[in-house]
C-alpha cells in the first residue's frame, strides 16, 4: 500500500487539492465574493452617493435558467460592460434554474434590499403564475424595482412553409394543432391567449422538449403551428424551415418585415384586452429588476448605468453579430408596460386555469 515514497504521495495530494480548487470554480464564479455592508446605508444616506456605494462592490446578476439559454446569453453579454459602468469590483452571473424560473425569481425577491442583486425576469413565465396564485410563488413582481429593459421579446406564431395554412386569416378559421412544452411558459400562455381572444378551433399538444422540440414538430408536420420567442426562431425562419404568420408585440418588429401584428385582428373588447395584455408582456420582454425596497437613488443609478451600457457601440456590435436585438427602455415607459402586463383579463385567467 505504501510502496511509494512520501514525495510521490505528496505530489498526488497537491494535484488533487488543486483539482478541488478548480472544481469550485463554477460555484465561485456565481457567488458574491464579499458580503454587502448594509451598516451605514440608513444612517448616512446623504454623504454616500450611489456611485460611491457601488465602487468595489460585487453585484449578483441572477438568471433563473440554466447556462446557455436566451436569458442567460443576454445577461452574460451585458455583465462585463455593466461592471465597468457601475465601477463595481465585479458583476457575477448566477444561474438558479428550476420550476420554470420560479426558484430563481423567489431567491431574487428575498435578497437584501441593497441594490447589489439584480435579476433578469422571465415575464411570460412569472406573471401568469403570480396572477393565478400558483403553488411555490413567493414573489410579488408589482413590488420589485424595475431597472431597465434590455430587449423586447416579440412572440411569433409559426407554421411550416409546406403546410396547409399559410396566412393568419386561414389560421383563424381552421382546425389546428399547436405544439407546446408544458402548461407554463411562452409556448403555452401565448396559444391559450390566442385561442381565448379569437375563439380558435385549436388543440394544444403539450410535452415537447424545449423550443427545438416544438419547432421540429412543425417542420415534420406533426402539428400545424407553434408559438414562442421570435429570437429562438430567427435562424429557422431565415432558412425557410418555419414561416411566421403573425407577431405579438407593442412595437414594430424590424426583423420580420411584412408579418402582421395580432392587434388589428382583435375585434371585440375582450379580444382586444387579451391581446393587449400579452403584447405588453412581449414588449417588456427581457427586463431587469432589483429587489423591493432598494433606495430610489441606487435604482436610478443602476437604471442609468444600464441605459449607457445598452447604447455602447461595442456592445451593440457584439449583439448584432450574435443576432440578439437590443431595444433599451427605462423609467416611466417601462413601468407602464409592466403595469399593463399585469392586467390579465378574466377570460384569459379562466382559460389558463383550465389547463
Amino acid at each position: 500500500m505504501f510502496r511509494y515514497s512520501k514525495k510521490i504521495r505528496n505530489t498526488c495530494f497537491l494535484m488533487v487539492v488543486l483539482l478541488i480548487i478548480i472544481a469550485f470554480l463554477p460555484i465561485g464564479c456565481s457567488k458574491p465574493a464579499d458580503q454587502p455592508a448594509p451598516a451605514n446605508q440608513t444612517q448616512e444616506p446623504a454623504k454616500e452617493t450611489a456611485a460611491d456605494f457601488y465602487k468595489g462592490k460585487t453585484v449578483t446578476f441572477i438568471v433563473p435558467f440554466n447556462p446557455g439559454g436566451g436569458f442567460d446569453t443576454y445577461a452574460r453579454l451585458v455583465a462585463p460592460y455593466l461592471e465597468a459602468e457601475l465601477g463595481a469590483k465585479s458583476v457575477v452571473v448566477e444561474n438558479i434554474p428550476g420550476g420554470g424560473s420560479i426558484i430563481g425569481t423567489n431567491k431574487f425577491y428575498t435578497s437584501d434590499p441593497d441594490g447589489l442583486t439584480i435579476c433578469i425576469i422571465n415575464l411570460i413565465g412569472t406573471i401568469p403564475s403570480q396572477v393565478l396564485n400558483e403553488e411555490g410563488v413567493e414573489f410579488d413582481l408589482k413590488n420589485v424595482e424595475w431597472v431597465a429593459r434590455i430587449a423586447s421579446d416579440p412572440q411569433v406564431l409559426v407554421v411550416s412553409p409546406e403546410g396547409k395554412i399559410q396566412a393568419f386569416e386561414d389560421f383563424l378559421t381552421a382546425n389546428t394543432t399547436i405544439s407546446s412544452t408544458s402548461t407554463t411558459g411562452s409556448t403555452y400562455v401565448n396559444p391559450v391567449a390566442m385561442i381565448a381572444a379569437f375563439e380558435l378551433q385549436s388543440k394544444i399538444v403539450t410535452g415537447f422538449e424545449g423550443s427545438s422540440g416544438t419547432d421540429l414538430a412543425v417542420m415534420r408536420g406533426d402539428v400545424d403551428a407553434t408559438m414562442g420567442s421570435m429570437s429562438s426562431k430567427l435562424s429557422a425562419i431565415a432558412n425557410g424551415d418555419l414561416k411566421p404568420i403573425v407577431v405579438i408585440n407593442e412595437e414594430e418588429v424590424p426583423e420580420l418585415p411584412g408579418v402582421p401584428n395580432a392587434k388589428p385582428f382583435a375585434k371585440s373588447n375582450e379580444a382586444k384586452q387579451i391581446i393587449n395584455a400579452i403584447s405588453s408582456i412581449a414588449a417588456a420582454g427581457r427586463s431587469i429588476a432589483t429587489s423591493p425596497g432598494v433606495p430610489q437613488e441606487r435604482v436610478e443609478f443602476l437604471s442609468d448605468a444600464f441605459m449607457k451600457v445598452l447604447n455602447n457601440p461595442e456592445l451593440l456590435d457584439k449583439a448584432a453579430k450574435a443576432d440578439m436585438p437590443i431595444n433599451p427602455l427605462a423609467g416611466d415607459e417601462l413601468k407602464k408596460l409592466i403595469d399593463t402586463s399585469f392586467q390579465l383579463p378574466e377570460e384569459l385567467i379562466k382559460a389558463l386555469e383550465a389547463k
Partner: protein
Amino acid sequence: MLEMLGTSLVSALTPPQIIYMIIGVLFGVVMGFIPGIGGVFVLVMLLPFVFNLSTEAAIALLISAHAVVATGGSISAILFGVPGSPVNAATVFDGYPMSQKGQAGRAIGVALGSSTLGGIIGAIVLLMLIPVVRPIVMSFGPAEMLFLALTGVSMISVLSGSNPIKGAIAGMFGILISLVGEDWVTGAMRYTFNSLYLWDGLKMLPVLLGLFAVSEMVHLCITGGAIAKGRVKIEDSPITGLLDVVKNWWLVVKCAVIGAVIGIIPGLGGDIANFIAYGYAGQSSGNKNNMGTGVVQGVLGPESANNAKEGGALVPTLAFGIPGSAGMAVLLGALTIIGLIPGRDLLGPQLSSVILIIAMLVISNIFGAALILPFVKYLARITTVNVTILAPIVLIITMIGAFNASRSFGDIVTLLIFGFIGYEMKKLGYSRPALILGFILGVIIERNMWLSYNLYGIEMMKRPVVLILTMLLLLIFFGPVIKSKMAHKKGVI
C-alpha cells in the same frame, strides 16, 4: 470535395489555430475530468472570448474544447468510479472494476484509444451525413423515439448481471423515480412533497454520483485499503489498453456509429448513447455474463460512443440550426457570433468552415489522447492511495460536482439519499446500471408516449420506422425463447 478537404486541413494547421486548439483541448480535458462540469459549462466559459477571435481560431477553440470533454471524464470514471458527466456514466460499470483489479492504466489506455477512434468516426459520419440529414431527422418523430427507447429497455438484461429478476426490479425502480416532478401534459405535480426542487424531477448528476461515487467510497471506507485490491501490476500500461482497442477495432467502429446516430436525433439526448453502446458491446462480444466485472469491451463501447456522439449531434445543429442538446444550443449561439450561419447555405459558401469543424474534431481527439497518455502511469497510482486519504477528497469533489447540477441544497440531499440506496443495492446484488438506464429512458418513454398518443393515436403503429422497431423489439424479446424451443426440438428428434 477532396480538394476542399485538403485546403481546409492546411488552413486548420496554421500556428494560431494550433495554439487555440491546444488551449481548447487542455481546458476541455481538465474540465471534463472534474465531475459536474460538462460540455455546456465548458462552452459557456469560453463564449466571452470568441467575440474577438477570427472565425478559424474560434472554431478551433470551441470545437476542440467540446470534443474532448468526454475523454477527460472517462479518467475520473475509471479511477474513482466518479463519472465526469452523465456521458461517462457507462464507463464506470467496467472501468472502475478494472481499476479494482489493478488495471487502471490499461483501462485508461482503452478509454483513450476508443475515444479517439470514436471521435474520428463521429467526424466522418458528420462529413457524410450533412447532405442527407433532412430525411433522417424528419423521419424521427415522437412515435419513433418512443419505440427506440422501448428497444433501449431491452438493454436492462445486459446490465443486470447474473440476476435478471433483480435487474428488472432495479430498472423499474429507475423508471418510477424518473416520473417525479411536473407532468407536462396536465401540469400536475407528482411526488414533489411541496418542494420546488422536485418540480423539474430528480437531476441526473446527483443521482448518478450518489449511486456510484458515494456508495463505492462508503464501501471502500468499510473494507479499508485502496481502490486496487490485491497485487497491483505496475507494468500494466496504457499500451496494453491501446492494443485492446486495436484487437476490438470492429466493435469500436460499430459502437461509434451507434453513438453518432443517437447524437443525430434531436431530443433523444446524448446521455443514453453510452448506455446503448455498452449494452451492444456486451451483447455482441459474447461477454454478456462478465459485463460489470471489469472487461475491456465494457469500457471501449461507451467511450467510443460518447466521443462519436459529438460529431452526430453537430449534424442537425449545422444543417438546420436546430440544436439537439443544451451544449449544442450554446455552440450554435457561438457559431452565429463568429459569422457561421447554420442551414441550407452550409454546403455552398460556408463549406470550408464545416470542413474546418470536421478537421478540428479529428485533430483535437487525437491530441487530447496524446496529451493524457504520458500521465497515465502517474494517474493509475492514485488507485493505490489508501482510503483514509482518498475517500475524503473524492467525496468532496463528488459533492461539489452534484451541487453543480442546479446549485441547490436539494442536490446534496439527493446525492446522499442515492448514495445510501446505491450502497444497499451493491450489497444486495441489485444492478445500479439498470436503475440509471430506467431513469434515463423513463423520461423519454413517458414524454413520447403521451405525445404520440395525442398526435397519432393508434395510427402510430402504421409508421414505417415504428414497424421496423416493433419487429426488432419482438425479435429481442422472443428471439431467445424461440431459439431455445428450436434447440429443444432438435434435441428431442
